[in-house]
């Protein structure tokens, strides 16, 4: 076992356990905390793939900004585990079975796929560095970049209008 494999196994186990606990936790605040663990594990994967810019942006945007927003909203609402109504047991089981079937179908579809055995380059390759990504972003992808700024502005205005009191 090389160091890369050990790191991959550790980060994958962390991500999967965190994801399971996000779904299982009764308390919404605990779910947010476990989701932050998942995001850290996924950022570790990005850094292992030498996609440094995406790894840092994932940490700043997801684990930093979005999760704080979730925590604020949960704490504003004063939710507690006892008042959360539980779904019917059979409906829950049906949901788990449906998800399991999706997992089974996707894994089975990959059994003889020709992409198997290809190597994803870890630790080498410099396309994930800020210099190269920035050059591509401001030459080839400059139109979607500007459009996304308009999207952000409209989202900001929309959030302010929706959240306004006394409509």
């Amino acid at each position, binding site marked *: 076992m090389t160091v890369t494999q050990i790191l991959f196994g550790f980060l994958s186990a962390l991500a999967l356990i965190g*994801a399971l606990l*996000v*779904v299982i936790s009764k308390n919404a605040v605990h*779910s947010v905390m476990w*989701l932050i663990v*998942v*995001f850290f594990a*996924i950022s570790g*994967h*990005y850094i*292992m793939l*030498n*996609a440094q*810019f*995406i790894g840092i*942006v994932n940490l700043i*945007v997801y684990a930093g*900004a*979005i999760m704080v*927003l*979730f925590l604020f909203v*949960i704490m*504003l*609402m004063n*939710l507690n585990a006892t008042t*959360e109504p539980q*779904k019917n047991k059979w*409906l829950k089981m*049906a*949901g*788990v079975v*449906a*998800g399991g079937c*999706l*997992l089974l179908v*996707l*894994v089975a579809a*990959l059994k003889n796929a020709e*992409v*198997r055995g*290809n190597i*994803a*380059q*870890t630790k080498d*390759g410099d*396309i*994930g560095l800020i210099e*190269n*990504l920035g050059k*591509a*972003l401001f030459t080839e992808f400059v139109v*979607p970049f500007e459009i*996304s700024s308009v999207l*952000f502005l409209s*989202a900001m205005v*929309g*959030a*302010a209008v*929706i959240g306004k*009191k006394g409509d």
Partner: protein
Amino acid sequence: MQIEYYIYLSIALFCIGVVGVLTRRNAIIIFMCIELMLNAANLLLVAFSKMHHLANQATNANAGIDGQLFVFFIMVVAAAEVSVGLAIIVMMYRNIHSVDVNFLNRLKH
């Protein structure tokens, strides 16, 4: 690292997100499970971009950079979506004092 390990990891994360959306009733948790699915897709995009880069780096030094930029744009759209979605959830909580999605199936109160 072989690409199929990344594919299996992403499939597992995505399916956990699907199960969460199907089994939970709290609107905020459903939102978090959607974020989980988005992240599974992002991880797969980055892994495939590095695979493509390794296969084609001799002919094109920037091969596979598109995948990482797509991930960047997905993050941008996800951030905008979360801000609007949480505003909608807060407004809904203000009106019906609950975040249970089963109360929302009539789209009015």
